[in-house]
């Protein structure tokens, strides 16, 4: 089926080569980082995790969001999602690959990563994270490829796929819960030490992932003959709405606990992020941008007369995605390290090599996504866009 990705229009190949160029540039930046060390990034003794881990955290959410289209279709026979499930599964594959790449580029000794497998440590959340992510990747490849292959042949998917689909539905929330546990079990970091960290992660995942899926479905419809369906996109819009409301609500809960209890350890990270402390305020404009984007998104999402217009829904989806990308992919991580355990402030900002490497990983994810979507779309176009009943 992969051979369908080798045939494409001029625009397709231009996009592919653009992605390869970004990957190439970032790869050279990575060679520089590999030679010198992680000192080429903006990370420091105090802020020891930065953009790489932030992007990883955000993308685990995007990967988990595949369940939002798989669950209604396979468990509740929601026919409208029939055409979009493969897009969701393939997005999950691209997202997990990006997660693994971000972990790899963040390692101080990347050539030793196999030590995590050679010396398994069940009490370490990071060990579990690696395990559940790898299995999730395998599940999505297995299910997505098999179902698509069956569609191409015009037959029903084999019955052994069903238990794997059910497993992937249960697995998706678990990968993001485990990732949340990386943060919510650390005694010294009060910004992260909250019971609702996993719930927050899931809420933003199920708002951010489907937003991206809406944008991708609209792009796919514009440039190919494949249409996921107006009803599917509207349903996704409703999912994004409710989960974005939940996400903002949860953030409000955090604000309440911090500012009503007034415990310095809880208050200070929020002050740093949203107002700055003692003249240190690099992240303040970034966090307020995220807030404004969230407000714009909610305004367009909550009112059905806006949400039903697809061009406004697209704006809302972009707004949601960017807002959450800033909040979970950057603000959350840096906020945990500022102030440091000595109540001192060391600020963090990504450097140029760090940004180039980050862009390259995103480009790799988009490359995988483009190829997989090209395969899916080609096969769907081959078969014709009739409804398939499983």
């Amino acid at each position: 089926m992969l051979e369908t990705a080798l045939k494409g229009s001029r625009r397709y190949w231009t996009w592919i080569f653009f992605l390869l160029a970004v990957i190439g540039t970032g790869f050279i930046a990575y060679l520089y980082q590999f030679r010198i060390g992680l000192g080429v990034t903006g990370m420091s003794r105090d802020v020891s995790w930065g953009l790489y881990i932030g992007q990883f955290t955000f993308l685990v959410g995007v990967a988990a969001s595949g369940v939002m289209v798989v669950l209604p279709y396979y468990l509740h026979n929601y026919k409208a999602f029939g055409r979009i499930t493969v897009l969701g599964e393939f997005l999950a594959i691209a997202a997990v690959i990006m997660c693994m790449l971000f972990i790899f580029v963040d390692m101080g000794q990347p050539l030793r990563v196999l030590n995590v497998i050679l010396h398994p440590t069940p009490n370490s959340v990071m060990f579990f994270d690696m395990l559940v992510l790898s299995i999730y990747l395998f599940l999505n490849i297995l299910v997505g490829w098999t179902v698509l292959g069956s569609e191409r042949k015009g037959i029903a998917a084999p019955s052994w796929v069903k238990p794997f689909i059910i497993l992937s539905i249960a697995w998706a929330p678990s990968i993001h819960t485990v990732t949340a546990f990386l943060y919510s079990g650390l005694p010294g970091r009060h910004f992260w030490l909250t019971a609702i960290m996993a719930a927050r992660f899931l809420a933003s995942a199920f708002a951010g992932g489907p937003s991206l899926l809406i944008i991708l479905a609209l792009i796919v419809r514009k440039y190919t003959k494949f249409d996921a369906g107006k009803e599917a996109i509207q349903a996704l819009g409703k999912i994004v709405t409710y989960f974005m409301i939940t996400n903002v609500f949860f953030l409000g809960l955090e604000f309440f606990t911090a500012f009503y209890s007034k415990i310095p350890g809880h208050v200070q990270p929020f002050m740093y992020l949203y107002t700055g402390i003692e003249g240190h305020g690099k992240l303040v404009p970034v966090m307020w941008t995220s807030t404004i984007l969230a407000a714009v998104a909610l305004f367009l999402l909550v009112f059905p007369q806006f949400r039903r217009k697809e061009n406004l829904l697209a704006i809302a989806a972009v707004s949601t995605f960017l807002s959450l990308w800033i909040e979970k992919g950057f603000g959350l991580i840096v906020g945990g390290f500022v102030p440091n355990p000595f109540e001192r402030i060391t600020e963090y900002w990504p450097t140029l090599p760090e940004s180039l490497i980050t862009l390259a990983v995103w480009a790799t994810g988009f490359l995988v996504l483009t190829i997989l979507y090209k395969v899916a779309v080609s096969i769907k176009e081959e078969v014709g866009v009739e409804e398939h009943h499983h």
Partner: protein
Amino acid sequence: MSINRREFLKIAGSSTVLALGGLSVSTLLKKSLLEASQVMPDPRALVAKRWGMVVDISKFKTEEDYRVCTEACHRVHNVPNVGTIKEEIKWIWKETYEHAFPGQEDEFLSPEIKHLPFLVLCNHCDNPPCVRVCPTKATFKRESDGIVMMDMHRCIGCRFCMAACPYGARSFNYRDPRPFIDKEKENLEFPTRMKGVVEKCTFCYERLAKGLIPACVEASQELARKTGREPGLIFGDLEDPNSEVRKILSTRYSFRRKPELGTRPGVYYILG
């Protein structure tokens, strides 16, 4: 017999997986090269059930009192002087009271106490969160004496331990440390580290193994002998009721950093 491409690929793939898998299993099951009976600890080694330290701040009167401790440690262990706050590496250092004990917010605290310098280092907690999170057991708690150790060979540089430590005791090698080590003062009997691994105080396990007390404690004692005063660092077995540290803890008021977090730190502070 004819075989189609799919069958061929299936057979080739499964035989490769079986071969590699069988090879890995046989390597893992191979007996270790050396017998356990061939190795044993050095008989001179200092032993304890749980090493701990008492820092008596009242004995630190001059700048030199602090400096000899931090310099002794950093010299014996080839700790580099990177020179920037961003990437500095420190195993033991001076921190004022308000920063070493940030939970003790007090607007009427005398400026004297607020700015009183303390020595801070890894607390070798009894319930260390850094050990709990390490995915490779590169940092681990030694069962024999409770020291929270670093295995530099295994560390993958994920820095999860740095996020987990509530005391900011750990440093990361953001670049090759060797250019930042003073070659004149290099200790040729101890390795350096390479870029990409985390490091911290290890209670001088390599000295304890030879019957020597930690470098900072020894420096403090030497200075005390020279100046006719008492040393500020006392090292001993927290589980031995007759040790000097236990005697101090039973007679004086002591406090530790962030005890409410449940880490059970092994470094105690007294004010006299």
